[in-house]
């Protein structure tokens, strides 16, 4: 099995899906000749031509809207949004059109499209190249929101997203692109949407996260074992909407303690939803208050290193939260 980076896994998934299904095509800014600003689509235009790997005008609204129309007509578009920060021109297309098309047509018109979105901070990108805004879309029923944390999942989930009949928002953390490597099968496989994964088993504490912060959470879990002998169960949500309540609540029923880690804003981030659900449906299972590790509620991530560091979740912050919950 070859070892792949996260970005290689995405590139591979796109190539395989373009090969497998002639209805699949890619559209986005700079994805053609240039192969994307992060090189996710490197070499694909050469291989599949300018029509199936299409450089769009600089207009997120039309990237997503034209994908909706094409998907309505039976194609399988995969749109790229260069930075999550610039998705706002496509907000109507996503929240009013894609999310509601199936609903408003009572299932007679649908848009099986995939929107790949590069998100996340910790790279000194500053206010407009660092945001994590998955919550905007988690808050929009009709959209499936996915955010893989590993190369294996990235390939399998992207293929599943492309084959899925719903509009899927696929969030790729830019810091993961080249920082993680693992063995990824060359064969065709998919990872199921809507299913969380237990990435590390444990009995003392449930830690829930996704994407880049999932990796930090795994590191924190290892430290908890080394430093305190605490066994942390780490759940990777993978799909953020609709999220896999069963896996999370089953785990909480065994551990009785919960830490939630995410890079979205704190207020109404997915941690708030998970906490509320635990309070409603698993109140008796809790032995300690739920603790969230999130950025503060400020408009965006400052560029200066010290401020960015203060903003971002990190292993120390997660360990501190875990200690607090265990000590309670």
């Amino acid at each position, binding site marked *: 099995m070859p070892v792949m980076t996260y970005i290689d896994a995405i590139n591979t998934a796109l190539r395989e899906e373009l090969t497998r299904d002639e209805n699949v*095509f890619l559209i986005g800014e700079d994805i053609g000749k240039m192969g994307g600003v992060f090189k996710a689509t490197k070499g694909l235009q050469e291989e599949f031509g300018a*029509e199936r790997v299409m450089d*769009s*005008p600089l*207009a997120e*609204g*039309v990237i997503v*809207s*034209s*994908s*909706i*129309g*094409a*998907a*309505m*007509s*039976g*194609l399988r*578009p995969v749109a790229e949004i260069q930075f999550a920060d610039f998705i706002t*021109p496509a907000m*109507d*297309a996503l929240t*009013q*059109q894609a999310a*509601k*098309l*199936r*609903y*408003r*047509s*009572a*299932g*007679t*018109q*649908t848009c099986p499209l995939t929107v790949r979105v590069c998100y996340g901070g910790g790279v000194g990108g500053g206010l407009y190249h660092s945001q994590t805004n998955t919550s905007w879309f988690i808050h929009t*029923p*009709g959209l*499936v929101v996915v955010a893989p944390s590993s190369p294996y999942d990235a390939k399998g989930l992207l293929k599943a997203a492309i084959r*899925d*009949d*719903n509009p899927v928002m696929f969030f790729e953390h830019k810091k993961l692109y080249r920082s993680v490597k693992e063995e990824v099968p060359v064969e065709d496989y998919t990872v199921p949407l*809507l299913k969380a994964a237990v990435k590390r088993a444990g*009995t003392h504490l449930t830690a829930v996260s996704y994407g880049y912060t999932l990796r930090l959470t795994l590191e924190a879990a290892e430290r908890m074992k080394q430093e305190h002998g605490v066994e942390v169960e780490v759940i990777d949500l993978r799909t953020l909407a*609709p999220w896999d*309540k069963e896996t999370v*609540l*089953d785990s*909480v*029923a*065994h*551990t*009785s303690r919960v830490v939630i880690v995410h890079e979205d804003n704190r207020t109404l981030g997915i941690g708030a939803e998970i906490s509320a659900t635990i309070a*409603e*449906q*698993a109140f*008796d*299972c809790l032995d300690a208050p739920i603790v969230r590790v999130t950025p503060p509620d400020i408009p965006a991530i400052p560029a200066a290193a010290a401020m960015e560091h203060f903003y971002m979740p990190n292993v120390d912050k997660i360990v501190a939260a875990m200690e607090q919950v265990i000590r309670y």
Partner: protein
Amino acid sequence: MATAIASIGDEQAEIPAVIAPSLREGAEFEPLPEATLRRLYTYMLKCRTVEEKIRILFKQGRFSGNYFAAVGQEATAVGTTLDLLEKDAIAPSHRSFITHIMKGTPLKLLFAQLYGRKTSPDQGRSAPAHCGYAPLNIITPSSTIAAQLNIGTGIALAFKMRREPNVVIALSGDGSTSLGFWHEAMNFAGVQKLPMVFVVINNLYAESVPLYLQTAVTDISLKAQGYGIPGVSVDGNDVVAVYQAAREAIDRARAGEGATLLECKTYRWYGHSEIDPAKYRTPEEVQEWKQRDPIVAMEQRLEGLGLWNEAWKQELIAGFRQEIEEAVDFAEKSPVAEAEECLDHVYSFSVRERELDRKVWSPKFEVVRR
């Protein structure tokens, strides 16, 4: 050349209504066959009869919500959508309900839509006038003005990629031209030479806002230049002129020559919706436009050709009324959806269980109370 008046502030200004020249330099339009002329008229009359009935039903409280009548604009709606192919798509605006009649959506389903019944194309979800119909490729629209144009580009893109000879007729109003979506759609259609006809129905108002506050040009077709596509303005109350211009644009699109912007200058007789008394327009202005009734104009034209008489008109209306009565009856007797059906069609999988059955978890560990 006919002129029309529109209020500009307190003053009345003349807005020239243009008869479009053919896009092909120096070319003249062929005279239309008699059968086409009669069909254009017949459909305008049908659309008017249907919409006047809808307005009465609304006023009687037989259905709720609202309705956006295109009465007075029939020449535009009919001339741009007559004889489309089944797979040709319509990207409709809120005032395009009657284009369903043109495409062939059964009247029964349209009235079921107005009544919000389970038998309607969207099973009672959308507001009355926001109707789509998948079998005939009519997008179920949202209310967001101009969003349908952008989505239309994707349908056109799919036609182009699959080398299919179909077109997208994208309808929108003068107000829509101010939105970013409008620009994005026109620009993308220009770049990709998409098989589309953008029909801007310039009825001089967007709700209460007059054209001069919407745009600094009087001929919206001028904007086409900025997108590298042809643009024409046409007297939107002259169904023959609209049809000829639209046919030329549709033929271009089918031939792979790209999109066209077709501005049709017309006027809505009534308020923006059925609850708008339209006090922002003077009675004189409305009267002036009513005298330019596209249906009466066509009657005179047909009569001159020996193709029209009052008896035929009454016969047509009687036929339409019967079809309408049957459709109203169908709608009124149709069931409404069960309340819980609001949980359906969110995703390709069901969310019913998730929403209705909120399971409770209990501890699976040994509870040690301190």
